[in-house]
């Protein structure tokens, strides 16, 4: 019971990185987490990002000890904690539903972990913790008397007070409204920098993951699709799944036939494009040529396309004014639609539906991804119907 150390000093000594080694969890015939291996450096803010059912929460529960892995290891430093009971791990969790104890007041909720470890004098620590999450004076209240945001902060305080070596956050902001969520994101990041504990954050909100985390791992079907800094993932995704899950992408289905010098030529729908070789995940066979919608610039004619830029001609089929930008859908010559965001700088004019346009991009902003043979159509997020009603304004 005491091996994680009752004394603060002992607990504060760095435990080292959190490593998952060949971690697998099966429920019956369903594989929730499939041979997962990754290293989360000590003190980092790590986000596991994925759609619901991708195995991210199961991964988190295995780190917490609430789920026993079918096989594999959970290493904290050099110690395998995969088979330890949850109360024997120096790991604490902020639950999605907060899971505050309804029959205890806020003070006792926060003090719960300290008391279970046999610490008697808790008042000072609890007060300091409540101050950290800006809930001074709320100690006597019951959880039901607090708002969602306040409950969320109590859940955070209740976990942090134990100085865990790893703090797990299971979609902790999902129940909050947008404004509060933004505020809590900044708050969480601030607290993480302050206390220097490893945070592992599970979320399906890509914006949240990118805002807060140093490193993001995109999960899909129990595996990690790509892992890296948010900017790297966004600017140069490794797979079509990542390109579409993290932000939006226009993916044009094409064929590549090996690199020619520093560029990879691609033929898509009979048009020739090229992508720098260092932006190509593959240089041969079926590929997707990807460009982010905000990297597309719209001009009236081909003559206006700057040199070094690639272009596609089309017709505006939809224009959505969203304040900060205008989002256009453009039907290309071969029938599929691509999406372009034009920042509302006040310089350009609004393009009407039906206007012919040329969309161009800097070749260095494109990326080349492997495509499964058979997936022949272009992919644009948000995924569009094969034939959206022309001219329909949203």
């Amino acid at each position, binding site marked *: 019971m005491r091996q994680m150390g009752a004394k603060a000093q002992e607990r504060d000594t760095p435990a080292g990185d959190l490593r998952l080694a060949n971690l697998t969890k099966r429920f019956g015939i369903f594989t929730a987490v499939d041979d997962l291996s990754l290293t989360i450096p000590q003190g980092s803010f790590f986000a596991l990002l994925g759609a619901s059912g991708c195995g991210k929460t199961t991964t988190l529960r295995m780190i917490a000890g609430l789920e026993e892995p079918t096989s594999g290891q959970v290493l904290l430093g050099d110690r395998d904690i995969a088979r330890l009971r949850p109360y024997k791990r120096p790991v604490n*969790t902020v639950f999605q539903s907060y899971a*505050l104890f309804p029959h205890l007041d806020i003070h006792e909720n926060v003090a*719960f*972990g300290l008391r279970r*470890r046999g610490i008697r004098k808790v008042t000072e620590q609890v007060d300091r913790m409540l101050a950290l999450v800006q809930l001074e004076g709320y100690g006597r209240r019951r959880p039901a008397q607090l708002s969602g945001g306040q409950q969320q902060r109590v859940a955070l305080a209740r976990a942090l007070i134990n100085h865990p070596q790893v703090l797990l956050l299971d979609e902790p902001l999902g129940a909050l409204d947008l404004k509060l969520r933004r505020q809590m994101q900044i708050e969480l990041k601030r607290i993480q920098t302050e206390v220097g504990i490893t945070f592992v954050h599970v979320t399906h909100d890509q914006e949240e993951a990118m805002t807060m985390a140093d490193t993001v791992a995109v999960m899909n079907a129990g595996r990690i699709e790509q892992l890296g800094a948010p900017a790297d993932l966004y600017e140069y995704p490794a797979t079509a799944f990542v390109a579409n899950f993290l932000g939006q992408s226009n993916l044009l289905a094409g064929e590549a036939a090996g690199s020619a010098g520093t560029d990879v030529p691609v033929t898509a729908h009979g048009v020739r494009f090229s992508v720098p070789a260092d932006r190509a995940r593959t240089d041969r066979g079926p590929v997707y040529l990807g460009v982010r919608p905000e990297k597309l610039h719209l001009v009236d004619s081909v003559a206006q396309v700057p040199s070094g830029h690639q272009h596609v001609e089309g017709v505006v089929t939809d224009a959505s004014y969203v304040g900060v930008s205008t989002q256009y859908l453009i039907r290309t010559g071969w029938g599929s639609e691509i999406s372009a965001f034009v920042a509302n700088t006040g310089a350009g004019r609004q393009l009407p539906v039906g206007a012919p346009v040329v969309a161009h991009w800097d070749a260095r902003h494109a990326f080349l991804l492997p495509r499964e043979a058979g997936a022949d159509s272009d992919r644009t997020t948000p995924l569009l119907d094969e034939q959206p009603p022309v001219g329909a304004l949203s």
Partner: protein
Amino acid sequence: MRLSRWLADRWVMIVALLVLGYLSLPILVVAGLSFNRPSSRLSYDFHEFTLDNWRNPCATSDMCDAVVRSVQIGFIATAVSTVLGTLMAFALIRHRFRGRSGINVLIFLPMATPELVMGTSLLALFVAAGVPQGFWTIVIAHVMFCVSFVVVTVKARLAGMDSRLEEAAMDLYANEWQTFRRITLPLVLPGIVAAALLAFSLSFDDFIITNFNAGTTVTFPMYVWGAAQRGIPPQVNVIGTAMFAIALLLVGASSLRGRRARRAALAAPVAAVGAPKSAS
């Protein structure tokens, strides 16, 4: 016009008050009769106000023996059925095992079976097994039908409990026993207490099943039944009123405690609520 508006706003409450009056009228009659000095043994008219019945509730020693016996049986049957029923409820909610759904159905059987049938079949069982009827056969019979009510009551409470609370407790260094002691039990306790009260009142007033399995032992309901033939002593009303008052006090005290705790919690941090500090 205004009257109909007034009625439209309040008719639900008026109906509720009428129903409440209907429910409490018999109890008020019993309470009133406990202060009565009847003119004759078989008279139920209010004849004359007196405190004699309350000063001397044990008019006949048989009656007080019967009350004490009923309370004893009630306590034992309640204790046994509450423990067994709570354990069963935990097993049925928390564990998946073969025959679980079958047991869920069987639990309702004692509630659905006519008491007469249950009483006679129990008697047949005791006779066949050669068990002499008396105090302990009554206890066994009472435990049998009380268990069902306990299981159903505790199960309802347990099903409404978020199992993530227990996971959170384990995550916060509480081992299995501490989790049960600090989280599960306090949260399920209101259900267990309600079940125990229900079991006690069922046991205390059961007549039919008890009558079959009592042998020569006389419980309070059996005493009242017997006494009714020759005129009920007014002290029976005293016992009835006292039982009712105790129950009322228990319920009142618990709701008062809950309300006071809530108010104290709300009153405390008024100063802090007004202006939460900015995030920076």
